[in-house]
């Protein structure tokens, strides 16, 4: 059993969905995404949580150029794969209440994107990684640009050019690494084994950083993000924030730092500072947002900033926390955007100041919203708490002041999130919100699943975290060993 079944099933499904007519297309898409989830569960049951790469596939693609279609799953990939296969059915289900034109194309693009992102999360070959990285960009561009809001055209082209720019430099770095390998391959393990000078590694590091930091996004490369999130259709926003930005987190853990450990070590303090600044900066902007979707967009920058900081701290707790929080953030942010989608669909506005008192007329909705908010602000017993705790712990290990600074995100997050909840749900109903109807059918189902996930992952974190434990330990220690052997003076932690 190789991973190729998992990777190509959504692609085939995408082609199949194209054949369906509008109404049935979404059912078909949901069906295929659930099948994909089931397949992933089968993989999960056969997965042995050690540091090895499993279910590997290695197919000669352009063997003369050293390019192979090689992919496999280890613990780190497994978390991301789970995130992907878990969220896509939820996202499809969450779009059920929208009647998109040309729905078959819409759902086909989602499934195509899922396939590309799965390849990103499992690729072992650098060329394959780059190709799938870009391939994931094309469907999301069209999803956002065709089905998005008023300003979508300008915003999406900015988004596309931004991300494409970053990744082209990554391509340059990958080609450069390829030239350096003795056997002229693109295999990641050959990249790991290169011994480049600090200067070379620094260039490689920054080239990768550009690609990943734009994707996440890390301050100051985030400027595409709020507009794109706001203008995209809800499913597009969910795909972007829930799964796609994790490509950046994953890329940093799998590619950037292990390939250029010395370059990373040399510039660590700068990137970690950027991440920390981004956290506070985005939180402060989030305070002043009046548009609900925009507020979530900025809060997402803050949360991802913390994840990025955890990765850049490069300790076992930091990387584990980043992985786990990637999963949680995906679930929570999809929940938040879905909540905002429900509100804006009913009230035809996203202005927070026009809302109020919804809790009175929609009690079920209020409970679900509250659980998601609590998960987002990292209350204990919710999933967000575990992730952020680990991340802050790694900050503490790195530098106590940094920990205090980045810890602000939890306080700020609680302030703006709870304030939003208060504005929207509590207080007196007004002429607009009095007509708010409680959630029904698929909405209940989606929010129910998300709430259950938030609580389960908050109470039994180890059900997921044990998957990546060995792989993270192995990776982090071997890289720290390399940095240590190179005699670098700064920040060695074991």
């Amino acid at each position: 059993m190789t991973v190729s079944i998992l990777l190509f099933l959504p692609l085939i499904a995408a082609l199949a969905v194209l054949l369906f007519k509008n109404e049935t297309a979404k059912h078909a898409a949901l069906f295929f995404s659930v099948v994909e989830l089931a397949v992933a569960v089968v993989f999960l049951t056969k997965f042995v949580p050690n540091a090895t790469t499993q279910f590997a596939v290695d197919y000669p693609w352009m063997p003369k150029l050293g390019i192979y279609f090689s992919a496999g799953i280890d613990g780190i990939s497994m978390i991301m794969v789970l995130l992907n296969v878990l969220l896509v059915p939820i996202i499809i289900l969450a779009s059920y209440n929208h009647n998109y034109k040309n729905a078959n194309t819409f759902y086909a693009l989602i499934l195509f994107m899922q396939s590309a992102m799965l390849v990103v999360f499992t690729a072992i070959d650098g060329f394959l990684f780059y190709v799938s990285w870009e391939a994931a960009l094309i469907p999301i561009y069209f999803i956002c640009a065709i089905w998005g809001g008023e300003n979508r055209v300008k915003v999406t082209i900015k988004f596309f050019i931004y991300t494409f720019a970053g990744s082209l430099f990554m391509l340059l770095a990958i080609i450069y690494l390829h030239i350096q390998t003795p056997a002229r391959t693109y295999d990641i393990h050959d990249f790991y084994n290169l011994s480049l000078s600090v200067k070379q590694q620094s260039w490689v590091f920054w080239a990768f950083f550009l690609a990943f930091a734009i994707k996440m996004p890390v301050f100051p490369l985030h400027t595409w993000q709020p507009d794109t999130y706001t203008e995209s259709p809800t499913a597009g926003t969910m795909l972007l924030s829930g799964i796609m930005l994790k490509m950046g987190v994953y890329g940093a853990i799998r590619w950037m730092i292990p390939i250029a450990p010395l370059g990373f070590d040399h510039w660590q303090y700068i990137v970690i500072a950027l991440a920390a600044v981004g956290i506070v900066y985005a939180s402060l902007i989030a305070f002043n947002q009046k548009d609900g979707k925009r507020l979530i967009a900025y809060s997402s920058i803050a949360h991802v900033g913390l994840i990025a900081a955890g990765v850049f701290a490069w300790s076992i707790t930091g990387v584990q926390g980043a992985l786990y929080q990637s999963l949680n953030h995906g679930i929570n942010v999809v929940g938040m955007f879905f909540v905002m989608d429900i509100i804006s669909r009913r009230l035809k506005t996203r202005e927070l100041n026009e809302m109020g008192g919804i809790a009175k007329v929609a009690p079920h909705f209020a409970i679900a919203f509250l659980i998601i908010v609590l998960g987002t602000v990292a209350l204990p017993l919710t999933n967000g708490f575990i992730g952020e705790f680990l991340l802050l712990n790694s900050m503490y290990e790195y530098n106590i002041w940094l920990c205090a600074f980045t810890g602000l995100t939890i306080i700020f997050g609680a302030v703006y999130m709870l304030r939003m909840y208060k504005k929207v749900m509590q207080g007196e109903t007004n002429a607009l919100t009095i007509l708010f109807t409680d959630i029904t059918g698929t909405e209940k189902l989606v929010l129910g699943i998300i709430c259950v996930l938030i609580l389960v992952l908050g109470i039994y974190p180890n059900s997921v975290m044990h998957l990546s434990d060995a792989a993270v330990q192995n990776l982090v220690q071997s890289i720290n060993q390399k940095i240590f052997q190179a005699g670098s003076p700064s920040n060695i932690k074991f």
Partner: protein
Amino acid sequence: MNTLILISVLPIVLLYLGLYKAKNALLPVTVIGLLVAAGLAVAEWNSNAQPIYHDMMLFDRFAIAFSVITIVSTILIVLLSKGFFEKISEHVAEYYAIMLFSLAGIIVMVSYYNLTMLFIGIEIMSVSLYILAGIRKRDVASNEAALKYFLMGAFSTGFLLFGIALLYGASGSFNLAAIRDYTLSHPRNIDPMFYTGVLMIIVGLCFKLGAAPFHFWTPDVYEGSPSIITAFMSTVVKTAGIAAFLRLFSACFASIADFWMPVLLVITVVTLFIGNITALYQHSFKRMLAYSSISHAGYLLFAIVALGSGSANSVFMYATAYSIASIIAFGVLILIQQQTGSDDFESFNGLGKSNPFLAVVLTIAMLSLAGIPLTAGFIGKFFMFSGAVSRYHIGLVVVAVINAIISIYYYFKVIIAMYFRNTADRVALAVPGYFGFVLGLSALATILIGIFPGIISDLI
């Protein structure tokens, strides 16, 4: 060799067909003739070809591969021209014939083994093109294009000829092998005349290729000529130009790369920037394609700057991808022009709704030209970048990357127009069967090469 003979005889047959008013036979005869010519070329495929005709020509793999791609591109363009020439004039047979004469010149250009043949090939091609550019006898723009092209072309041919003469003066031969031997046997004391000759040849060939700063004729000529001729010039002719360029430089001047490399490096960088930045400001799709073709000339020159064993394959891949995508772009443009009478970006508005098929194939073409993965264009760019990085021209690749980013903006302009700017009154275009076939096939080839580049990536 048989290919060349067939392609030279074919236009004469076509002229006779025109004489006897057998208009309906023109297209089938042309296409079948070209297919046979391509087949003959493939049949000569072997790894140790010897020069023929007293060392005038060499049909090696390089020559055959480029012959086939130019022939195939010509077939596609000829298919697109069905019904196009009839509207312009009554002398349809002549147009087919001239186009094929031009192709005969191109076959010589990709298979020469002697500089006189290079010159003859370029002239056969160019003279035919001067006529083709001015084929709309009563159209001022077409006449202007022809005149400009002729003057500039004659000028550049002068440079080329002068360069060839200087090379002959230094080395005493027109033969490529003899010239190479001259550079190898005089490593330290190459005649200054020789260097001057090399520079002259660079100027001449860059003119033909449309590389900056010798590109000024391109936009006007491309815009003024009938679209089908523009398609021919920007694909087949450009492919032939770069093939001739590469053949000469890899065969003769590899050992004096230190001398000409900086010159070409500057030309490449300037070409990339001028092509891309000017393309940004265009309102006309056709003019945008003209400027983007300049920037693609820049990417093609990468292979020569980073001259090495992989150069031929890189150029072949890039030229193939570029030709196919451009043919799609021009094919759709011709249909749009026929419907709206304009070639502005606005005339593409709402195409996504009225003609989903055209919109999808044009999107694929634009993605390929922009170099987005899973299309042939990406593989072409990837090969070019890899070649340049392997020679440590990192700065050059960074420049190219910046240009690739700029190009997204204008290639996506047409995608945005098609899908996101709707006009209420757009009527669906009637797509003739020939067009559907050519566009569909080209789009399919773009994707196929993008996913399985192995099918053409190491032919040469």
